[in-house]
């Protein structure tokens, strides 16, 4: 069997664009999902029952659905049941944001609950309001425990962006598979796709290990 690896170089521009879209999707999703996760966690821990229930329902729903199904749903169903018409990119972004916000909310909730209750009580006794206690005392400490988990979520998200290729968002996976079907260089393109993901993802995975080690909480 003859292999022709020049196809990778020949289509480098398309692959680079794909990498750009993959990174853009990861960054934009995280930019939405971190505040989104904090908001959902605060809603869930709030004393207003309907807020807490709404947040719990949202989080449990999206934690328990395959992301690829959410992507399909957002692409085929959402435009039919509502007037929302989004481009493929925005649809993919929306599905990723829903999924990652739900996971981040659990991360923040666990982080907030890991700070002992006595600290919030001490803050209130010192004349802080509940909001001040949350933003000045609890969140700054919770952050340290949350960061390593957010880093892992980041890597998972980076990989999950490949799933929006099923609705033809031109990120790395879709770009590689398009080149594959144009050139019939199946083995070369699919291997190149795996290697590019590895080159981008491996340092991130190693960085996560380093962050975990650095922020390790010794009880």
């Amino acid at each position: 069997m003859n292999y022709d690896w020049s196809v990778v170089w020949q289509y480098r521009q398309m692959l680079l664009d794909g990498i750009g879209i993959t990174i853009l999707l990861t960054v934009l999703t995280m930019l939405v999902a971190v505040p989104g996760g904090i908001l959902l966690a605060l809603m869930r821990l709030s004393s207003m029952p309907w807020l807490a229930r709404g947040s719990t329902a949202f989080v449990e729903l999206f934690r328990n659905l395959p992301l690829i199904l959410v992507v399909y749903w957002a692409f085929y169903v959402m435009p039919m049941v509502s007037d929302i018409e989004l481009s493929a990119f925005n649809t993919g972004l929306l599905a990723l944001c829903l999924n990652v916000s739900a996971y981040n909310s659990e991360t923040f909730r666990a982080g907030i609950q890991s700070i002992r209750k006595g600290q919030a009580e001490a803050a209130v006794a010192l004349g802080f309001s509940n909001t001040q206690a949350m933003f000045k005392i609890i969140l700054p400490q919770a952050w340290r425990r949350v960061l390593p988990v957010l880093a892992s979520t980041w890597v998972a998200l980076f990989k999950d962006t490949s799933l929006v290729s099923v609705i033809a968002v031109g990120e790395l996976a879709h770009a590689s598979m398009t080149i594959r079907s144009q050139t019939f260089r199946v083995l070369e393109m699919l291997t190149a796709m795996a290697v590019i993901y590895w080159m981008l993802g491996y340092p991130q995975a190693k960085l996560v290990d380093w962050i975990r080690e650095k922020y390790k909480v010794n009880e």
Partner: protein
Amino acid sequence: MEFDFSPILENWRYLWGGFGITLGLSGLTVAASLLLGFAMAIGRIYGPRWLRWPLVFYIDSMRAIPVLVVLVWTFFALPLLLGISIPTFWAAVIALTMHIAPFVAEIVRSGIESVRAGQTGAGLALGMSKAQVVRHLIMPQAVVRMLPSFGSVISITIKDTAIAAVIAVPEYMKRSETLAGQTYHPVEIFTFAMLVYFIILFPITRLVDMAYRRWAFLGRS
């Protein structure tokens, strides 16, 4: 907007078959990943030095490559490389196991390493062999601590089997997609699919959350 759920009722046998394939694929993947994951973790901790770095490299690499890429590569590229054809179902079992087993290996490793080193020393001082220490002292404590995480492995695997739809494994996701295309009722079919996945996955995550709380005290030693 009018909803018409008759395509689901009329094709329930087709969807039910897909559901069975989803469960079969998940079951096989979980079983194979547990075996392979245990083997990799034990090899990494107790194995000879030359075995360690390839295992670490493999585990870390799989954390960096999307499961979709592994699936597509196993189904389309691997047969070209080996000159054989692999049926979609088995390609999916292989690819998902390649992806999930390193995850299991990390769970097993952190479980084993959570048992304090002093216990190994104590066992050896009492005249137990290394293998006896691992089997009778470390594993019984470590496995209990791994159990909740194995629950997460099951729910992650079920969610990942939906991605096997991209290589046309006729599991629930793929069959929903086919049916949606044939009947022009994507709204009802995809929404129903959400319900189906939620109904299997929700009890599992609930049990896992309970297990974490119920068995948390066993983690102390």
